[in-house]
């Protein structure tokens, strides 16, 4: 779902506007800038409350995961049910390197994220090579997530098993859990969003759209489907790795449940279902709504699971493309009715 607001008029007008937008790139990045400014002002609203600040950071973390999943799944239909595991690989790598070899945070996170990207590349490559359907990619990546969780539990010496791992880092901006950490995650998210926008506008975006509409037709039109799937897989996994690694340092403590399927993949799925799969700002809106809803539902204990299940059902039954695109589509229709067509 491309949400550059091209007013739906005649074909020519649409093409002209698209042309103008390409000439004025600032316009295309406006949603990214607005998001950054709005979220940048959020700490002023929150004030000194550490609690709400940590909620806001969690929202940014999930928005980051969401953008990555959006690039992988929303653009190229590769159902990666291993976001948590990819984030965890990076998180545990960074933590273990930091604890044992005293590697600085940034280096550890970078190495971890590169590992995640490598793994994502492997999944993409394998699924393209073997021409795996959506569910098979889903099952393979889900199996990997479960294998990863079990290895974490089994390798106690390295990972601390179920009790988890405390990250003994020097105090820094991220580990300080203050407003600074919030802005680090916000900067990362802004870069992600800009990157996604840039991808959408480049030839990669055209290829994504083509292969999402009809993979066979795209291939026949000379698009190297394998290459673009690989690109999406690598970029998305790199993003997941960066967020997952930084989050480990932010929390100061990680355990298998930090990166479990139920803790990462499922919430991201719910958020994206809400925000709209494939849309630029969908993950941000989804994560924001999710943060609020999750907080409101906290007293409900296990009924929370039921509510999330119901949300998923309603979203996928009623709004196949997410609530935000449905709303903007409605707005567009209203606007069109008001301006008489020439």
């Amino acid at each position, binding site marked *: 779902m491309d949400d550059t607001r091209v007013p739906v008029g005649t074909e020519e007008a649409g093409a002209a506007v698209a042309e103008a937008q390409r000439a004025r790139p600032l316009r295309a990045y406006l949603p990214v800038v607005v998001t950054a400014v709005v979220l940048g002002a959020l700490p002023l609203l929150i004030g000194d409350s550490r609690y709400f600040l940590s909620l806001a950071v969690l929202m940014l973390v999930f928005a980051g995961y969401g953008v990555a999943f959006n690039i992988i799944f929303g653009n190229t239909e590769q159902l990666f049910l291993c976001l948590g595991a990819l984030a965890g690989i990076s998180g545990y790598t960074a933590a273990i390197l930091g604890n044992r070899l005293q590697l600085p945070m940034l280096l550890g996170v970078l190495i971890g994220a590169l590992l995640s990207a490598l793994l994502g590349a492997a999944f993409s490559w394998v699924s393209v090579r073997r021409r795996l359907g959506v569910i*098979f990619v889903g099952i393979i990546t889900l199996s990997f997530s479960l294998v990863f969780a*079990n290895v974490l539990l089994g390798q106690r010496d390295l990972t601390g098993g179920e009790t988890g791992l405390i990250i003994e880092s020097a105090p820094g901006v991220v580990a300080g859990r203050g407003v600074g950490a919030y802005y680090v995650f916000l900067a990362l998210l802004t870069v992600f969003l800009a990157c996604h926008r840039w991808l959408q506008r480049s030839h990669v975006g055209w290829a994504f759209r083509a292969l999402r509409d009809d993979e066979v037709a795209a291939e026949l039109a000379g698009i190297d489907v394998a290459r673009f799937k690989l690109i999406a897989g690598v970029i998305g996994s790199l993003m997941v790795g960066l967020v997952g690694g930084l989050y480990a340092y932010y929390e100061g403590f990680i355990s298998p449940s930090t990166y479990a399927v139920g803790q990462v993949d499922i919430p991201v799925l719910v958020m994206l*279902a809400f925000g709209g799969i494939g849309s630029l700002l969908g993950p941000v809106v989804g994560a924001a709504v999710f943060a609020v809803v999750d907080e409101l539902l906290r007293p409900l204990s296990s009924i929370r699971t039921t509510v999330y299940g119901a949300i998923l*059902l309603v979203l996928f*039954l009623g709004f196949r493309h997410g609530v935000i695109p449905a709303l903007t589509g409605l707005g567009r229709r209203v606007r069109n009715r008001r301006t008489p067509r020439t």
Partner: protein
Amino acid sequence: MAVIFDGIAYGLQLGLLAVGLTLIYGLGGVLNLAHGQFAVVTAIAATVLVDVGLPMPLAILAAIALAGMLALAFDASLMRPVYRLRGEARVLLSLLLTIGAAFVIDGLLIYYYPFAALNVDISGSAVNVLGVAMRRGSLAASLLAVLALGTLILFLRYTRRGKAVRSVIQDEEGAQLCGINPARVRTAVFVLSGVLAGVAAVAEGLTSSLGATDGLDLTILALIVTVVGGLGSVAGALVAGLLLGIVYTLSSFYIGAYVTFIILLLAAMLTILVRPSGLMGKGA
């Protein structure tokens, strides 16, 4: 040798669990990720009915009937929009919707019955000599599984309705041309898979216990078996169930539980990579 027997017994249970999942997939190209929840609902319903005062066999029958009804409700509500789609989109929507439904069921069951667990004790005396009591339970479970699976195979092979099911699996349009209503067949098989999940729950209750939190684990086990056997192949699910059951018991006896689960998962991954159609599936 006792380990092998245990493995076969467990394998039969796995096959029983997976066969419902694979039937629905073969028939409608639909993946039901709430399959384990059907089993759990059966287990919880049976324990609740026993608590109310029903004798165990009656409670179990009623609980299995409830699983069938739940499956019917699924088919009449969630599956409607799914069947309107085709190919990949259909599998994807079915997967997402049934995950949602699984969460709804899980949350409710864990909230209302956190400690209920089906435990069918047929040894009579409570604390028994360890091995013997278990042996009896798993023997009964195996018998139950063989009975259910045998009935299923006879049904598919020799009855008119069973043949209708197989014809829809082979060629939906062709079956339709022969006057078979695929939608009706799909509904019947969905209910059948719910009932099979219910029977699997009873088998599980005979050998160990089944509680509110076990749904997802069961679904994943069933999925692994189904994938290794070949999505859509009933015979494949049985063979893979037996194979993985023996591997599981041997491995957890000699190596350890956590490595065992990894081995099963790797088996599923490897199957997808090497032979996506599974052990007994039709060639890709």
